[in-house]
Structure formats: structure tokens, C-alpha cells
């Protein structure tokens, strides 16, 4: 899978190991944030390391759930269940991004 190919300006990857409670919460939270802030301008993929364990190494994932901002550059990472929207916005540098 070529994770960098997308026609959207925002490309997000959520790394999980199985759909644990934390993973489900993370997916729910980030989807809500994206829909609010980036509707139509983002792509979000869930990458389950159970199916592709090798990706953990390649993408430098040390803990899951980890949300990776693949685009725009630079690469940013957030870990946890993303249950603090403020922190997520800060970490992804979404504050500067105008509300749609």
C-alpha cells in the first residue's frame, strides 16, 4: 500500500493493533475532528499492525493508537485515544486551519 498517494491535502493514518477500545475511541474522535475541520479535504486510513506488523518498524510506530499526519508536511504524531480535542488540534497544527 502506498500510503502517501492521495489527492487530498490532508492525509492521516491511524495505527492500531486490533480494534481495541482505545483504537475505537481514537477513530471516533479523529473522525469527528476531521469532519468538523477538514470535511472533504482529508483522507483517513486505519492501519492495523496485526495485519501488517512490519509497518510498525518502517513507520517508526512505538505505541498504538498513534495518529500520523502524513500530509501536509512535516510529519506529526499523536498517541492515545485522541480524547482531548485541544491537544489533537495542537499536535496536528490544526488551530491555524480555518474552520470550514
Amino acid at each position, binding site marked *: 500500500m502506498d500510503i502517501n498517494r492521495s489527492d487530498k491535502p490532508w492525509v492521516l493514518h491511524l495505527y492500531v493493533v486490533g480494534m481495541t477500545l482505545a483504537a475505537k475511541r481514537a477513530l471516533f474522535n479523529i473522525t469527528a475532528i476531521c469532519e468538523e475541520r477538514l470535511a472533504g479535504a482529508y483522507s483517513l486510513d486505519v492501519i492495523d499492525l496485526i495485519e501488517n506488523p512490519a509497518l510498525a518498524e518502517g513507520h517508526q510506530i512505538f505505541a498504538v493508537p498513534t495518529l500520523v499526519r502524513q500530509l501536509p508536511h512535516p510529519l506529526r504524531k499523536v498517541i492515545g*485515544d485522541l480524547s482531548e480535542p485541544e491537544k489533537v488540534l*495542537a499536535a496536528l497544527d490544526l488551530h491555524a486551519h480555518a474552520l470550514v
Partner: protein
Amino acid sequence: MTTESLQPIQPPSDLARIVLECSVDGLLVIDSDGFVLFANPAAIALFAGRTAELAGFHLGAPAIHESVEIILPGGDGARYVEMRSTEIVWGGHTASLASLRDITDRKRAEKALESSEQRYRSTLEAAPDAVVVFNANRQIVLVNTQAERMFGHPRVALLQGNIDLLFPERFRQGLSGLSARYAADPSHEAPEKVGTPAELFGLRGDGAEFPIEMGVSRLETDDGELILAAIRDVTERKKMEQRSRQLEIMAAEAETANKAKSMFLSTMSHEIRTPMNAILGYSQLMARDPNLPPEAKSYLQIINRSGEHLLGIINDVLDMAKIEAGRSQITARKFAVLGLLRDLDAMFRLRAQAKGVQFEWLLSGEPVEYILADEGKIRQILINLLGNAVKFTERGRISLRVSLTYRAGGQIWLSAQVEDSGIGIAIEEQRELFQPFVQGEAGQRGRHGGTGLGLAISKGAAHLMGGDVTVRSSPGQGSVFSLEIPVERSTAPDFRGDSGERRRVLGIQGGQDAPRILIADDVADNRDWLSALLEGLGFSVRSAENGESAVSLWRLFNPQLILMDVHMPGMDGIEACRLIRSSAGGKDTVIIILSADVTSDRRSLVFENEVNDFIAKPCSESELLEKIGAHLCLSYTYEENTPSEKAEPGAADPVGFDPKLLRKLPADLISQLRDATLNGDKALLDKLILGISKSGDPLSARGLQELADTYQYDKLIDLLASH
């Protein structure tokens, strides 16, 4: 973002470092871009294997409200971590202090528990029974797929309902008692069966009831006490049980009926034969009355023939019943095969010739003169086979070939083949041929009469002797019936000269010219019988049907002996005798008068001293031969002495049985015998008697057996009662 509200933290002092290093929890300081600024040894240990240098590596900024379970992947060594984070100021910048607590062990334990629950579930699913778990409120909390199927409710419906859903109204009270009992007495430990299988039913979703069996046990859980019910649908088993009960009843009924049938038949045997003997005997006696008008004579003949026919049928039916009931027994004794064949020859030669059919027989194989076998049964079988052959053959010939040959194991076999050139039998009829109560083509029945049991009896008797009767035939090509039975070679039976038993004459001893005998009798049956008998023994015989022809034959044939009937049309016997005696050489001929009416004929014999002897009719074969032998100074060959009638079951009294011997038997055995007799339980009786024989009292056993075999239960009871 402001940092004033945050607690400024300086890079740790020495003391703080020591505290951090001793912390069991991992502690990380992560900047707002997600890079690790500081990690204590516990944190480093958590990431061991992934990165040697934690400081500076890009973990990600924590976005956690309170705490979250994260996973540190690493193949098999994945660790489960509970993560918390707080914002701090580190070196003048906003950062996160994350604490990481390793909860891997707890997670593993949870997983193990989960999988054991899974196993528990799959066990439930694998169980053949429907399993329903319900709580103290009778609410169903767990079911397996079998329960869904058995009760015809989807799982959801079951889990929303209570156990009343599963049982007909009338059982609900009892079941609530069940849960109440469990609530009241938690000491129940072993699973308990509720109700007996006969009385508990389940209720299906479609309203149908079905018999069940249910076992329950108590489960102690965190959610309180639960009751597990394992339920089995026993519809099929009930059916099977019912069927086997029915079979048992039927078998018992059949056994009773069979016993009744045996008793009935033994009674019938006696009850029918006795009057039949009277009918036959008196009709024969009456037929000899010379003063009887001819039509009355012919009526009597009809009575006689019908009576004999009827007796034959009765005997057939009784024989068949005996064989079917397994009551037919083998009575083996020593006898000469040749003697048997001569008897058969005497019986069938005339009958065959009367139809213009040739009859021949041949004995071949081993030169065995005497064998040990059940002569009566062999004779019966061969008479049946020959009788059929004569019946169904209109022209050509009938042959009886008997051979004795050694076969595997040194066993000697008697093989007899009756071949005819008769109508033959179609293949599909051959199968039915040996079935009792099935006759050949309907047309044949009308033509030949009879019970059609003969072959079934023959086959049954042959089986009893360890052999078989088989047929080879095709329509129009004649038939070959074969009897094959194993026999034993035997020596000449012991001669018991003083036993008073008459021995059967087999023939005139060799070296003598065939003595010439003239038979004068107006009744063809009498002539035929006598001449067949005498010719069979080696005499030369001529017959005359009245006085005139007797006299003229005497002149031509010059017999040594005349068997003269008295009453004949035209010249009667007395006149014929006078004529012969008064002729030249007439005094040298032996004349024996045969007469049915002893008194009146004797009176009329004024010439009594002119005849040599007098025999009353019906004359017995042995008396006749004895007198002929005496007058002509002949020596006969005899069949070896066998008590032919006595050995048959049905003979009057047990031979040589001393009732005193019974005193030696234990009292309880006597009472068992008595009970068996009173119940008419022949099988038990046989068993008990066999026991007596084995315990070393064969004499008592034989005596009792004879009484039992002839159903002389009254006598048995008398005997047993006196002890």
C-alpha cells in the same frame, strides 16, 4: 498557548533523578511535537528492543483525557500499557509528562479468562443437549444453538424470555418449585434430575410438545446463583422404548399362543385320531360283510378312502406343527437300507404300474448294510417324494437311486434321488415348493388334493437330521428331488429273539427257487396288496378273481400254496377247494383260507380237514408270512429286531421307568417340575429333565421325557404329586 498556568519544572535535580530512576512506572517527558525529551529507566525498559536511545525519538504527542490503554507493538513481546499524561513546562516549553504502567500481565490474565470463557461456550455448543442457564428470577441468561433448534425459538427470543417459554403450562408450577428449592437450599451439589422421563415435556415455539429429560446443576457466579439445565429431546428414545415394549409384549403373546397351540395340537392329535381309527376300522370290518348290498359296500369304500385321506391330512398338519414348534425329535436306530428300499418298492411299484409308469430303484455306493439313522423319518421323506412323483407323472418312469458315500471328515452320507419324467416345476414355483401352506398352481391342487405340506415336512425332517431336501426341475422335463443326510455306519442290530417282538421279513433266504403262490380274491385291492407283498419278498405270484379261474390257474401254474378267499362271485372259495382236492395232485397243494367272518365261515367249512390253515381277515403281514413259511418250510431273512413303534414319541407308557427313582430327586426340583407341568411350560420341563439326565439319573429323565413329549401331563402330575 500560555505557559503561565502550568507548573514550571526544571530538569531534575540529583535527588529527583534517583526518585525517577526508582519509579516502577515509566515516565516520559514529550514535547509538543511528540519527541521524547526524557525517559526514566522503567520507560526505557518498556521500549526495550525497539529503541536503545529513547531521548529524541518521535513517539507522538499524547492526546489523552484521563488514561488510555495503549499497546507497544513488538511481535510476541507486545506490551500493554496504561498511559496517563499531564502538561508541564520543561525547560521553558510546554511539554507532556506521561506515566506508563505496564499492565501486560493483567491483560494476559484477562485474555486467558476470555479464552476459557470461549472454550466454555464452545463446550456448550458441542454438547448434544440443549443447555439453558437461568437465574433466580427464571430469566434465561445463556443458551446454546441446540436449545434454539430444539425449542424452535431464536436465541434473542430465548434470552429475552424466561424458562416458562420452554415448558407447557402444567409443568411451570413444578419448575418454579425447582428454582425456589435451589434458592432455599444452596447445598445442592450434584446435578439433579427433574421429573421422570415419562412425565416431563418441553414446549416448542410452534406449540408442539415433546418428551424431554432434564438435568440441572447450580452455578455460583459473580452475577449470583445461576441454574444450568441440560435438556435432552427423548422423542426418538421414547419411540424405541415403546416399540421394544410392544415387541416384548408380542413375543410374550406369541410364546403363550405357541404353548397353547402345542397343547391344542397334542390334544387334537389324540382327539381326532381316536375316532378316525374307529371310523376306519369299522368301515373296513363292515365292508367284509358278504351279505352287504353292493351299493352299501361302495359307500363304505368311499367312507374308508375319505377317512384315510383325512387321517393323512391330519398327520401332515400335525407333523408340520411339530417341526415348526421344534418338537420333532430324531429317533436314530439301526436298520438295513435294503429293507427300506424293498418296502418302498412294494408300496410304489404297483401304484406306478397302475398308471403305466415304470418304477425302478438302485442302491449303490459303499457296501454298507446297516446304518444308524432315523428310519421313520427317512421312510416318511422317501414316501412323500415317491408319492409326489407318482402323482405328477403320467407316463415314462420313476426312479429311486440311493447311495451311501463317504464325504469330508469320514462322514458317511445317504443320498437318495427320486427322478420322474413328470410335468416338472417352474423355477419360481420351486422356491414355494418347500414352504408350508403354499401350494403349486391352483389347478394342481384341485387335481391332486392333499395339504401340500409333504415337502415342507420332508425338508423340515431332513434339516432336523442335519441334511436337506432339494429339487432340480424344469417344466416338461421332469424333476429330481434329492435327500441328503449324514448317517452312521452300523453293525447288525442285536437280535432279541425272546423279546416277543415280531421281526419284519425282508425276503426268502437265498438258494431256494421262488415258491409259487396263487391268490384267489374277488377284491382287486386285496389281491394287489397280497401279490405286491409276496412278490416283493421273492415269491412267484398269480391271482384269480373267482373260484373258476382259481381252479384253472391251479392247473396251469401248479402253485405250492393257495391263499383262498371264501366269498367270491360265481364259484366260491369252498367249492374251488373241493374241486382242487378232488383233482389229481390236488392234495399236495397247501391251501390257506382267508376269511373276514371267522365264526360263520368256520361253521360252513364242513371240509375243515381238507384245508391246511385258516387266517382271519384283515390278516397281519407277519401272521401270513409265518404261516406260509411254516407250510412251505421256508427260511426268511429278517430286518433286525427293532421296537419300531415303541421308540416313537406318542407311545403309551414310558419303558422301564421306575417311579420310585423320583424319590432320589431333590424336593425343590420336583416342585419345579410340577409347576412347569401345571403351566404347560414344555420348554422349562425339557430343561429340567435335561438337568436330571446330566446329574446322573438318565433313567428317570428318559421316563419323564417320554411323558412330557407325549403331553401326558396328567400322568406327570400324578407321578410328581406322589413324591
